[in-house]
């Protein structure tokens, strides 16, 4: 009943298994969550950083411009514009109408910004990427307070260029941190996934191992259910299944053992009356001449049937011994051709059977069982085939080969398989004269007991061919 599981020749199991899928899912979820969280926080931190920096720059610029405003004469001249310029550090452009003073690198100032500031009352901001990094452009329209207390654009416009390099570096650092956080989440996630996978997979692995044990015939194999989750339920269900399987198999085994014991007991009990019948038959046989002819015919029948019954019971007993595992080979050194010759001589088959064998061939075998094997195979060949029957012996260092070939029609197609079954009669029309129907089964059992093999087939150009191989030098008992 043991079958080897077919080997997987698809992708390696590691890539398709439950474990891989579990880990992949866990890692994906964990990394995605970590990345999302860190990116979101990095982004919001970057934004607020930028905003606060811009605000600070703008406020500083506005305050300084406001501080210089009272000192200005209106309409301003270039000197006034210079005063404003000098109040502010960094690159700056101050314009009024067509007047223009500047300091530092101010090429970055855009037309957009000018348009936004021009004629307006509000400070304008613009971020630009230039070759030298991220810049903040601030445009401030200078307002003057009129006599009526109203603030009006004075026409003076101040443009500043501020470097945002520091801020950008900080933002970059935040981004890097986010990346690192996501990256660090990966091994942690894998570790967690492995732990989770183990928690799920260990029961699954145990289930597989236990199922294998059951399949291999260890009916006591059970799982240890632990916890109260679905896996524990599965384990409980599995154990219940195994238990019911075990009880039905044990029941079957018990019934089989019972029926075998019954056969053995029946055969055993039959021997007692058969012993009496055999004695009586022998005495009657001696007196046959003195009997009237009708009684003689009856007695001859009774004698013949007694012998058949005896051989049937003998064969049943023999099979029962194999079934009970009580059959033991008595190994001794035998001369195989000698045993075969004696087997043929004692059954008066020497005329119909040709022995093809080396002069001497020693082996360590069970002499009586070898005799049974030869007698059954040759008897079968003489019954179902045609003489001459050939018995061929040969050997190498490890094995002896015994072949029995007849000259009959050979085995029917597909007949070889059932040939060693019990009570298999090759030819149903042959009826009851052929023997007990156990002869070939007993032959096969005797071969197997030696650890040998037996094969049935057809010989080239001849009839049926039976080939027995037996180990040559078993350890003597």
């Amino acid at each position, binding site marked *: 009943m043991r079958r080897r599981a077919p080997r997987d020749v698809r992708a390696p199991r590691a890539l398709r298994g439950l474990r891989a899928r579990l880990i992949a899912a866990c890692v994906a979820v964990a990394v995605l969550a970590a990345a999302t969280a860190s990116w979101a926080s990095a982004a919001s931190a970057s934004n607020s950083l930028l905003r606060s920096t811009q605000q600070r720059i703008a406020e500083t610029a506005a305050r300084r411009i406001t501080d210089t405003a009272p000192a200005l004469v209106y309409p301003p001249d270039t000197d006034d514009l210079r005063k404003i310029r000098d109040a502010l550090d960094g690159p700056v452009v101050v314009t009024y109408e067509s007047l223009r003073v500047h300091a530092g690198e101010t090429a970055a100032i855009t037309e957009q910004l000018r348009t936004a500031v021009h004629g307006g009352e509000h400070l304008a901001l613009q971020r630009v990427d230039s070759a030298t990094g991220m810049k903040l452009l601030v445009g401030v329209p200078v307002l003057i307070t009129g006599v009526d207390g109203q603030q009006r654009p004075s026409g003076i416009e101040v443009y500043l260029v501020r470097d945002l390099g520091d801020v950008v570096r900080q933002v970059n650092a935040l981004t890097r941190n986010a990346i690192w956080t996501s990256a660090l989440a990966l091994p942690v996630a894998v570790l967690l996934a492995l732990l989770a996978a183990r928690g799920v997979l260990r029961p699954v692995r145990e289930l597989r191992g236990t199922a294998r044990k059951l399949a291999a015939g260890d009916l006591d194999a059970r799982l240890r259910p632990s916890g109260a989750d679905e896996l524990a339920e599965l384990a409980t269900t599995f154990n219940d299944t195994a238990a019911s399987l075990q009880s039905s198999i044990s029941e079957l085994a018990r019934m089989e053992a019972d029926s075998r014991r019954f056969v053995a007991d029946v055969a*055993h009990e039959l*021997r*007692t*009356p*058969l*012993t*009496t*019948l*055999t*004695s*009586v038959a*022998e*005495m009657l046989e*001696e007196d046959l001449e003195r009997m009237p002819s009708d009684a003689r015919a009856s007695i001859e029948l009774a004698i013949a049937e007694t012998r058949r019954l*005896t051989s049937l*019971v003998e064969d049943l*007993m023999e099979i029962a*011994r194999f079934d009970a595992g*009580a059959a*033991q080979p*008595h190994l*001794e*050194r035998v001369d195989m051709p*000698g*045993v075969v010759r*004696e087997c043929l001589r*004692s059954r008066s088959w020497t005329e119909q059977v040709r022995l093809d064998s080396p002069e001497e061939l020693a082996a*360590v075998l069970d*002499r*009586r069982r070898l*005799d049974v094997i030869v007698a059954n195979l040759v008897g079968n060949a003489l019954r179902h085939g045609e003489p001459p029957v050939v018995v061929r012996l040969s050997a190498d260092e490890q094995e002896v080969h015994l072949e029995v070939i007849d000259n009959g029609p050979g085995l029917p197609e597909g007949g070889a398989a059932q040939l060693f079954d019990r009570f298999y009669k090759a030819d149903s029309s042959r009826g009851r004269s052929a023997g007990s129907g156990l002869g070939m089964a007993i032959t096969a059992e005797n071969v197997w007991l030696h650890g040998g093999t037996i094969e049935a087939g057809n010989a080239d150009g001849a009839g049926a061919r039976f080939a027995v191989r037996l180990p040559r030098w078993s350890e*003597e008992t």
Partner: protein
Amino acid sequence: MAQILLIEDDQSIRTSLALALGRHGHEIREAGTGEDGLRMLASAEPDVVVLDLMLPGMDGFEVCRRIRAKSAVPVIMLTARGDDFDVVGGLEAGADDYVIKPVQPRVLDARIRAVLRRGTFAEQTQSGRYRDLTIDRAALTVTKGDQQLALTPTELRVLLELSRSPGQVLSRMQLLELVWEYDYLGDSRLVDNCVQRLRAKIEDEPARPVFVQTVRGFGYRFGPV
């Protein structure tokens, strides 16, 4: 021809075997239990005991052991199974031979005659002396030191055959033919068991035999001493 004690619990078998063996010229006394058999054995010693192993009450093995404790009378077992357990157990209990039920009376008769012959034919040769073991082939006695040994006819015959030419190996098959008069299908366990019992009686250390030595894969030989 011979006095036979048949110990068998089945009435029909007893009757039919007694009738059939009677035709072969034997005189049969019957016992239905082992206990009865032992009692009859005490009153008059038969030439051969034919003993069924499956007896109610005291089983055949025990009966055989008790017979052996006080007598060298040949015992032939009737085994209801050819089972190893029965055969080996019976031989260890001291039986000389066995037949399997259902037995043909003429086969049983042949076994009885064979076992009877073992205790009879004396030889013309003088006795041989090997260390402290003296085998008198004419008187059919064996002495160790100054003790005469109580060997069964079968044990004696095995010893006589082996010591006929000391140092020469006899195979189990040859011994089966010479002593038990079996053809090639004789059971070699008969020989092995008998040799064990013989060693227990004649060797100083049965586990390290000097007189009856095993030649692995071939058989047994006497000495050389």
